[in-house]
């Protein structure tokens, strides 16, 4: 990968509102923006008809799990969107990176809309609905996750400019928190529940939409990691042992938080899904995030969820079954009758 040229020694986190797109300093950010555009999907494409009849088949434990999940998603995506606007957009000073963030913001909005639609569909009772939407206030396991997020949002809330190394480390911790802990761990935990349901043939609509959300979220995480990489290249001195120690502690805390959520979600345990396995899975994912950040593994756990291996494999759907989600949005070129194909 090419090292972006720095304009007059300017780095990505230098304060300001850079407006110059050409010459482009970080063309790979722009490419990520374009790739995201090609994967546009809309909530209307998700067919929830079968879900409603599936809901009636769920055991009370399973239904409890579904309610908790959807409540978390709806809140979680809103938090991510807020942090993006209030913290990230301000400090990532390259117009091509801000293009990506704008696109990400749109995607977060679609996700919120999707889970809003789900909650409205799954919970016809208005009181249930209100309770689910207020999850962050009175469901302790979700509140705990919310508190974790807000702590890291608040940590840089007062920063208008990233002038000192300490400011920049605070910013990095916020970014890493959102990439590695919220999108990269909380959401990955939630996705595992959805895929567990799907591995049993339940809630097709939830799974389809979540699949698309998952695809988007993993790209967001990837973008955040590429921002972190860029900063590391430009200012390697920011990445010291103290940062590693702090990130590791952050991930430990995130794993605990999510494991507490798992206890709430799984209750006494469901067939093929329980707190113990979920914790091992979270530890495994956390180690992956650390590896991605070039930091040593903390947990050394193996992935207990074989069904998650399925998420790494390309999909093939026939239209009688599900909608095919693999199509691209932007296509270019002109008619020609003698190209190779």
């Amino acid at each position, binding site marked *: 990968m090419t090292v972006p040229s720095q304009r007059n020694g300017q780095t990505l986190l230098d304060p300001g509102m850079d407006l110059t797109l050409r010459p482009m300093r970080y063309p790979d950010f722009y490419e990520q923006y374009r790739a995201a555009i090609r994967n546009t999907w809309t909530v209307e494409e998700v067919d929830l008809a079968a879900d409603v009849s599936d809901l009636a088949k769920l055991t009370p434990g399973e239904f409890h799990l579904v309610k908790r999940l959807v409540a978390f998603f709806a809140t979680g995506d809103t938090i991510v969107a807020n942090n993006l606007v209030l913290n990230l957009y301000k400090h990532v000073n390259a117009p091509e990176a801000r293009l990506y963030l704008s696109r990400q913001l749109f995607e977060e909005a679609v996700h919120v809309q999707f889970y809003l639609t789900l909650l409205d569909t799954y919970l016809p009772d208005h009181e249930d609905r209100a309770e689910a939407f207020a999850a962050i206030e009175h469901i302790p396991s979700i509140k705990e996750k919310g508190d974790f997020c807000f702590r890291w949002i608040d940590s840089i809330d007062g920063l208008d400019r990233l002038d000192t190394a300490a400011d920049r480390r605070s910013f990095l911790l916020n970014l890493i928190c959102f990439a590695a802990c919220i999108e990269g761990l909380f959401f990955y935990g939630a996705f595992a529940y959805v895929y567990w349901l799907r591995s049993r043939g339940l809630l097709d609509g939830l799974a389809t939409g979540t699949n698309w959300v998952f695809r988007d979220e993993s790209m967001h995480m990837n973008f955040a990691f590429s921002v972190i990489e860029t900063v590391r290249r430009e200012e390697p001195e920011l990445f010291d042992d103290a940062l590693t120690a702090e990130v590791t502690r952050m991930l430990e805390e995130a794993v605990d938080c999510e494991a507490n959520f798992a206890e709430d979600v799984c209750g006494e345990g469901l067939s093929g899904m329980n707190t113990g396995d979920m914790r091992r899975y979270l530890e495994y994912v956390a180690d992956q995030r650390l590896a991605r950040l070039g930091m040593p593994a903390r947990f050394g756990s193996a992935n207990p969820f074989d069904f998650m291996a399925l998420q790494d494999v390309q999909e*093939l759907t026939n239209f009688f079954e599900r909608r095919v989600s693999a199509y691209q949005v932007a296509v270019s070129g002109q008619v020609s009758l003698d190209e190779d194909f």
Partner: protein
Amino acid sequence: MAITTVRTTGDPETAEAAPALHTHIRLAAEGLPDTDPARVVRAVESGRAPGATAVEDLELAVRASAALIGADPQYSRLAARLLARLIRDEVLAGGLRTFSESVAQGHRLGLHNDALAALAGANAAAFDSLVGDEADEADDRFGYFGLRTVYDRYLLRHPTTRKVIETPQWFLLRVAAGLSSGVDEAAELYGLTSRLAYLPSSPTLFNSGTAHPQLSSCFLLDSPRDELDAIYGRYTDIARLSKFAGGIGVSWTRVRSRGSLIKGTNGRSNGIVPWLRTLDASVAAVNQGGRRKGAACVYLEPWHADIDEFLELRDNTGDEAQRTHNLNLAVWVPDEFMRRVEADAEWSLFDPKDVPDLTDLWGERFDAAYAAAEAAGLAKRSVPARTLYARMMRTLAQTGNGWMTFKDAANRACNQTAREGNVVHLSNLCTEILEVTDDETTAVCNLGSVNLSEHVADGEVDFAALSRTVRTAVKFLDRTIDRSYYPTDAAGGSNRKWRPVGLGVMGLADVFFKLRLPFDSPEAKELSTRIAEEIALTAYETSAALAEELGRHPSYADTRAADGVLHVDHFPRAAVTQPARWDALRKTVARTGLRNSLLIAIAPTATIAAIAGSAECIEPVVSNVFKRETLSGEFLQVNPYLIADLKRLGRWDEATRGALLSSEGSVQDFGWLPEELKSLYRTAWELPQKALIELAAARTPFIDQSQSLNLFMAAPTIGKLSSMYAYAWRQGLKTTYYLRSRPATRIQQTTVAAAAPVSLVEPSRFTPDEAVACSLENPEVCEACQ
């Protein structure tokens, strides 16, 4: 006695699951040396909920085994065996011990029809002995995906308890008996289906022998006439046909375009889009009893002035009031359009109200009428043909929809179009059926597919066995016409008049793997064509024999066959290898006529190929490792031939498994793999699409209807697509099906190790150059090369 197991992490714990389950798992793993039953036991122990029942434990064991299929394909068999036990336990718990008991109970519950109940009741012992001791062996032919699909969707269930009341073998026997007059006939068909050598289409599998035996797969409806009542009448027809598991093709070409004057009100028409929105909603409302979703494809000819809006119906952007997310779209393209594309000429768009006959014409008569309408100044507007063609290509790339189907090729060789007024106006939901329709005639087709994979013996295709299979298959497809319930008179009438059937194939890719022929090799093309010829010849011979025994189909006099011309005769360059047998056939047909106006159609076979565990119809494999998403959940599919080769090479290990997942099932970057294996195991994305088109073109003379031909392009551009579809047209293909492309971005892999940060590779890039660069830089995490 409690069994002690050691978990992957943590201390030894005392297992609580019944020891019987452990025994089941160990017994089921017999003969599967590459499975580790202890691993499944551990997963069950770790995953079981407190107080789980024996059935829940068994179900957990099934899923735990299935989740390991990626580690070794033998886990598929293990999971299938455990599931077979679960099904048998469920049936036994319902008090059913034999096939005849199952039918008797089903009949009491209103599930089975009287005829089947009478037949099974009168011959209980004979039927029961067909599925006696051999049932275990027959069940063992299923892979997990196949058996799971059968269990979740095909086995009849008790209406209130929702427990299955038939085993997989009783199900196949029920289907066979539902099409038979006696035990011997049923045994003949069951003999094929229990070996998975042939399977009827899903509607037949769902409904044969039941109280609603709607056995047909496809219905083709003519465009509604350009008036309100006719349009609403079509909605009703479509809903009725859809209700019992039929797929719908409907043309909309006769309906006036936007801006057209409505005489009765002196208003202007809003065109076809609002009507199609209503159709969209109607199709979504009918869900085929929960077993599969209703589905329809709308056909439009590209001279219709609403063609632009039509092509946007599936877009994700724009006004939702102009979108139909449930409808499939196909364009019914006359040759004249493609000629104008080639010549870079203008193309005129018309309001069908001004040119009402155009949709009823094809070939030279269409060309003349079209030119005359242009000369008369009737066109609403004109566009460069290439502009519209580019728009069509964009729709294919963006939605996979907007299938290119060729009106003139579809009509030219069709056996039903010998007489004026008999016109093929559209194809069906899967673009393999080509039959005439008109306002009062709904075309119908009954389908079934030969599993070619089961017709390979001693390193070659067993043509004698293939021929035997085809004889039985055609006999029962013909029988299906008489046993089927028709939801509308327009459908029943036409089916009894033309008696068309569609015999297809599945597992062609398996044959190539077994014989080690690369998909694009000359030998593969020759063999594939030879197979198509053998099937066509035998099918026609059988239909002639049936005509002699039971009479020719009532409209035989209106067919090209009655004029002495068989489908193959329209193709002077057909690769005929058995000219004497064709001559004999022509003589026979001249004497006997045919029982069926059409016999061959290659359907996509998605679900029945899953049941049979074979590759879909005539398709190459999409990947050597992929998952299938279905209403039953997700399932990992691994190419068993590749893994057998890797095991032979001593390379089926953790590293290769990881690399195969990372590369999304491609082996092209496995430097250590011998070139001939790399060539053999190219995926659909890696094969030249020209080869797929040429294979299809070579078999076209032997396909009297058409074939569901998917084309694959990972990173489509307008230039490549326009070249590809122009080539398909020039090669004389009648229809094409989906354009398959890949997601522009995809999920970050969870179970493949994260990349080291220094070599961090950006997510999907979809220009081919970048994809290459990316894979060279870091094949382990490249997302673009999936």
